[in-house]
C-alpha cells in the first residue's frame, strides 16, 4: 500500500459533481474515501452516494421513554413518597398525571433529539479539518483520499467535469 493523499476539487454544478464521483467509482475509489461538502442540502443520492443509516429514531424513542418514566415518577411516584394524605391516602389523580407525563415525555424527546443529532454528527468538533470556505458560497467540494499514484488521474477526471481549485486538501480551523 502506497502513501495516501487528500485531494480536493470544487465544482459549480451538482450534475458535474455527480458525474465526477461516478468516474471516481469506476477508478475503484471506495465510497468511504470520498466526501462531498455542499452549502445547500441536496436530495439523498443526488450526488450518487448511498443513504446512511441513522440511530436518530432509536435515540428519540429512548428519550421519549425516559421522559415518560420520569413523568410517571413525578406524577405518581412522588405523591406516594411525600404523601399529602386526604381521605386516608395520597392524592394521585389521572388527568393531572396525564398532563405531567405528557409534558415530561415531550421535554425528554426534544432534548434527546437535539443531543442525538449532535452526537450523530460528532459535534461540537473544533479541531482542524479538511474544508474549503467556498463551500458556503455555492461550490460543491469533493474530497478524495487516494494513493499518490492516482492523483493525476483524479485530477484529470475532476478537470474534465469542470472542477476547479483542484489541489491537495488543507486542514483548517473550524
Amino acid at each position, binding site marked *: 500500500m502506497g502513501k495516501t493523499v487528500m485531494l480536493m476539487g470544487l465544482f459549480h454544478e451538482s450534475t458535474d459533481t455527480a458525474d465526477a464521483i461516478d468516474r471516481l467509482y469506476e477508478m475503484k475509489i471506495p465510497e468511504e474515501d470520498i466526501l462531498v461538502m455542499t452549502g445547500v442540502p441536496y*436530495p439523498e443520492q443526488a450526488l450518487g452516494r448511498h443513504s446512511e443509516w441513522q440511530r436518530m429514531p432509536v435515540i428519540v424513542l429512548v428519550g421519549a421513554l425516559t421522559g415518560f418514566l420520569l413523568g410517571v415518577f413525578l*406524577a405518581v411516584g412522588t405523591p406516594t413518597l411525600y404523601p399529602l394524605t386526604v381521605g386516608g391516602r395520597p392524592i394521585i389523580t389521572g388527568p393531572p398525571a396525564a398532563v405531567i407525563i405528557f*409534558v415530561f415525555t415531550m*421535554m425528554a424527546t426534544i432534548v434527546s433529539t437535539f443531543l442525538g443529532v449532535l452526537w450523530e454528527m460528532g459535534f461540537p468538533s473544533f479541531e482542524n479539518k479538511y474544508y474549503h470556505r467556498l463551500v458556503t458560497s455555492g461550490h460543491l467540494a469533493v474530497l478524495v483520499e487516494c494513493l499518490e499514484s492516482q492523483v493525476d488521474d483524479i485530477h484529470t477526471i475532476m478537470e474534465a467535469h469542470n472542477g476547479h481549485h483542484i489541489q491537495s486538501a488543507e486542514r483548517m480551523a473550524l
Partner: protein
Amino acid sequence: MSEAIPLAGKGPAPEKSRTDSLPASLSNEYQDRLLLEAMKDWEINQAVLEPMSRTGPWFWVIVAVLAAIVAWGLYAWGYQIYWGFGVAGINRPVYWGFYIATFIFWVGISHAGTMISAVLRIFKVDWRRPITRGAEAMTAFALMMAGLFPLIHLGRVWKFYWMIPYPNNRFMWPNFQSPLMWDMIAIFTYLIGSSLYLYLAMIPDMAMARDNTVRWRYKLYRLMALGWRGTEAEWHKLHRALNIFSIIIIPVFLSVHSIVSWDFAVTLQPRWHSTIFAPYFVIGAIYSGLAALAAILVLVRWGMKLQNFLRMEHFNALGKVVMVAGLGWLYFWFAGLIVEWYGNEPVVMELLHEEFIGSLAPLFYLQMTCNVLPIFFLMFKKVRTTPVLLLTFAIMINIGMFIERVLIVIGDLQRNYLPFNWGTYRPTWVEISIVAMTFAGFSLLYILFSRIFPYVPVWEIKEGRLRYTLRRIGRLLIPTAAEIE
C-alpha cells in the same frame, strides 16, 4: 408561489419543463418573483450578512430608549420586591391583574413561530423559508418575557426554587395536581424546544457566517457552528432532526396554551369554567402571534432593507393565514358566548352586562373592533401586500388581543358567585412599568438578535431555489416545484 404568468405569444405551445427557450423578459419576471433571480450564492450570503453590521445613529437611539425602559422596569420590580406585593393593584377578588393578562399575551405571541416554522415545514410550504427564523426568534423571546411573569407574580421571587422537585429538608414537595405547576413545566418545555429548534436550524448559517466574517463575529459564529462542514451526512441528519422536531413541537405548542387556559378553566370562576377555553386560547394565540409576526416582518424588512427576501408574496400568504386565524377566533368566541347567554346564569349575565353595556363596554368594543375589522380588510390582496396597511392591521389585532386578555383575566374576576365579594381593579405604576419592561425587553432582544445572527435562513432559501423550474403549459409559465425535501 403558484400563480401563472401569461405568455405574450398566441396559439398553443407544447409543454416544456425547461426555461432555456423562454423569452428573457418573462424568465426574469418569474425569477424575480421566486427569488431565482441571477443572484449567486455568495451574493445571497452578502445580502444577508451586510445589513447585520449596518447600525446607524437611529439604531443606537432605539436601543438606548428600549434599554432605559427595561432599566426602569427592573427598578419597579425591585421596588415591588422590597416593599412587597401590596404596591401592585391586585386585590380581592381580582387576584390576577395586569401581570397574568400580559403573561397570557406573551404566551400567545410565542405560538406563531412554531406555527409558521414547524407546521409549514411539515407541509413543505415554500413561502415559509425567508420568515422561519424571524418567527422562531419571536417565539423564543416572547416565551422569555412570558416566563418572567410567574416569577414576578410570585412576589417573593427568591422562593422560586421551592417549585423545583428535589428532596429537601422543608418536607415539602411541589403539588403536581396544581395547574400552576403544569404551567411552569409546559412553558419551560416549550422554551427549551423552541430555543433548540431555532439553534439547530441556524447551524449551517452559522458556518456560512463563520466563513465570511472576521474578528469577534468570526469567533462567535465559529463557536456556534460547532464544526459544520456541510457534508452529506451532516445535511441528512440535520434534515431528519428538524423533521422530528417539527412533529414533536406541534403537540407541545398546542399543549402550552391549553395548559395556560386550564389555569382558568379548572376553577369555578364564572365565564372561566368552560370546556371551550383551551381551543379558544389556542386559536387566539395563533391569531395574535401571526399578526405580531407580520408586524415584525414589515418593520425588519424596512429597518434592515431585506426587500430581496421578504417579498409581497410572503406578506400576501401570511396575511391570508392571519385572516383565517381571525375567522377561527371569531367562531370560538361566538360559540362560547352563545352557550353562556343561553345558560342565563345570573352572575354570567352580570358579567356579560358589564361587557356589553357596563363599565367594561369601552374596552370590549375596542377589542372587538381591533379583532374583527382586520379580518374583513385582510380579505383584500391590496391590503395584504401593502406593508403599511398590513402593519396597521397587525398592530390593531395585537391591541385587540391584549385587551381581550385583560377582559378575560381582570374583567371576569371582578364578579363571582358571592356578590359581597365583588370588586374592581386598577393597575399601579409598578405593574405598568413591569409590563412595559417586557415589551421593551422583547423588542431589544429581537433587535439585537437581528444584528448578531443571520435573520434570513440562507440555506433554506438556497434549498428553495433548487426546487423551482419554470414549466410552460399552453400560453402560461407555471412555477413548478420538485420534490427534493
